[in-house]
Structures are given as C-alpha cells and as structure tokens.
C-alpha cells in the first residue's frame, strides 16, 4: 500500500483553510497533518511536523507565502511547497519559483486540480497550469532578450583603442590628446563601451578587454 501524502495548509482564510482540509480528508492517499493561519506559525509547525507537501497562501499576515517558501527551501528542502495564489501574475510566479516553490495553483483553480498538484509535487514534479507555463516561457524569452549575447557585441576599432589607452592609465584628457579628439568624444566612446558591454566602470572595461586579448602587447 502506498504511503499517504502528508499535507500542511497555511491560509489566513479560515473557511478556505478548514474547507480544503475537510475536502482533502476525503482523498484516500492524502492526510492533512496540520494547518496555520499565519506565515510564522506555518514555518514553526512545518519544521515540527515535516509534511511532504505544504500548501501556502501567497498573502498571509506577518510572513507572506514567499517568506515561508524561502525559509522552508533553506531549512527543509524536502518539503514541497505549492503556492496558492490569487492573481495570475507571471512575475509573481517567477519569484515563487526562484524562492523554491514546487508548484503554483491559483485559487481560481478547481479542487480537483489542487489535488492533482499535490500528487505531482510529491512525485518530484513541478506543477503549474499550461497557461501559466506559457506565460513563464514568454517571460523567460523576454529576459533572455534583455541580455545581449556576447557574440553580438561589436566594439569599433576606435573603442578598442580607447580601452587600450585607459589600460595604460590615461585620463580622458590625455586620451583626447593622444587620439586628437575632443575630451567629450572620449567620454562618449567610454559611455558607448560600457553601454554595449553592460559594464559599470572603466576598470571593468579594461578587465573585459584583457580577458578577450584586446589589449595591445607592450614591447619588452
């Protein structure tokens, strides 16, 4: 006989918390071992009871669902957390996943769907609806687009020259004198270099150029 899935419920909505517990009690393979109405109480109880699956409401008083998920992921990674969320917000789902949640179920979902999610995460799977998965894929693609692939970054010969002068320890004024350009033009070049490479300062630009062997070898 299969071992029952031990479930914990944390939700400040008493009717929902008690109702879900009563309904889950009807499932043959699920046993509700405890519940809590606040985040801090949930963490305390879950550490004591060590359920297989914790259903955690996203918006609880004191510590919210994300705080609870992070705490559990850090201290009790074996407990699979399913976040019970209200809005279908992709960013919120992303944060939940990053915090260590194994599943995200909207309260707009059916009870049957919730039960399916509990069984899924117990099997070690991650769980979200196909619609949520589609949103997540889009969001991931968006984020990937925000990071410029390194291969597509092209520094102009002039910009490489400017980095070389910076590496030589020259100030903007000295570089402008050496390259016969205005100091403001030097500043523009540096700004463009940092922007293209998504770096923060001149030192990082030199480091970048050194790693990619863009710096001219100095004669011995």
């Amino acid at each position, binding site marked *: 006989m299969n071992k029952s899935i031990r479930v914990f419920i944390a*939700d*400040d*909505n*008493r*009717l*929902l918390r*008690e*109702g*879900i517990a*009563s*309904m889950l009690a009807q499932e043959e393979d699920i046993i509700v071992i405890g519940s809590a109405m606040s985040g801090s109480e949930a963490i305390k109880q879950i550490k004591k009871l060590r359920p297989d699956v914790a259903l955690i409401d996203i*918006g609880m008083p004191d510590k919210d669902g994300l705080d609870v998920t992070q705490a559990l992921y850090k201290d009790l990674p074996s407990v699979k957390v399913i976040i*019970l969320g*209200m809005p279908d917000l992709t960013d919120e789902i992303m944060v939940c996943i990053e915090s260590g949640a194994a599943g995200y179920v*909207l*309260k*707009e*979902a*059916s*009870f049957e769907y*919730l039960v399916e999610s509990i069984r899924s995460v117990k099997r070690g799977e991650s769980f979200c609806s196909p619609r949520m998965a589609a949103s997540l894929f889009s969001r991931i693609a968006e984020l990937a687009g925000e990071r410029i692939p390194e291969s597509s970054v092209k520094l102009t010969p002039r910009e490489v020259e400017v980095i070389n002068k910076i590496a030589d320890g020259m100030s903007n004024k000295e570089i402008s004198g050496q390259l016969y350009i205005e100091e403001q033009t030097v500043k523009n070049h540096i700004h463009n270099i940092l922007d293209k490479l998504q770096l923060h300062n001149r030192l990082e630009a030199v480091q970048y150029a050194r790693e990619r062997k863009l710096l001219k070898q100095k004669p011995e």
Partner: protein
Amino acid sequence: MAFNEVKHDMRKTRVLIASRPKLLSEVIHYMIQRQPDMKVVSEVLDPLELFLLIKTLRADVVIVTPLPGNGDPHICIKLLAAYPLLIIVTQSAKGEAAYLYQTNVPKKRINEPSAQSILDAIRQAMQSIAS
C-alpha cells in the same frame, strides 16, 4: 427513517452560490451539501444570471463574494429590493469578513468566518423569517 429524509428534504434551505475564487466556491458547496437541512441549487457568477436564477430556482439564500470596497455591496441592495425575503451572505475573497443581509434587519457581521459560523448565521436568519 424514510419519513425523516423526506421531511428534511421538504425543509431544506435552498442555497445559491455566487462566490469567488473557484476554490472558495467549491469549499462552500462542499460545506452546504453536507448539511441535512440545506441544499445547493446552483453556482453562478454572472450577476444578471444570479438575479434571474434566484427566482427560477427559488433560492432562500445567496452566498456571494462582493467586489472589494467600502459600505454595503451594491449587489446586496439590488437583490434585497428585488427579493425581500432573500438572505444574503457576503464572504470576501480573502476571507477576513463575512456579513449577513436581510430586509429591514441591520447587517450582521459574522465574526471569524468559518463553516460553522456561516451555517449558524444562515439557520438563525431562516428561523427569524419562519417565525
């Protein structure tokens, strides 16, 4: 035994559920259907459909999730104007508050809304109408 069952059935309070989110609606459905003296006549979301179904299904009670906001939900005022004998229970989606509305009776706050406190409030209201 059979008599009792029929007797219960005749007196069953007819409940129409218009709650959100769906999980809460299913919990309320489960809670009501386990009561021997109550019966879920339907679940509905569209306000217009709600208005029509109260009459068609002869609902005694409506459990509804109003839109967030202050004061008495507009829908309660409209429903009571159309159906003076109706009992309305409002349950916020977040669950922090529930109220019971009846015609000519001050709204009653159901403290710490739970299955039991909501069922008790409905029964009391039904009794007050019967008497």
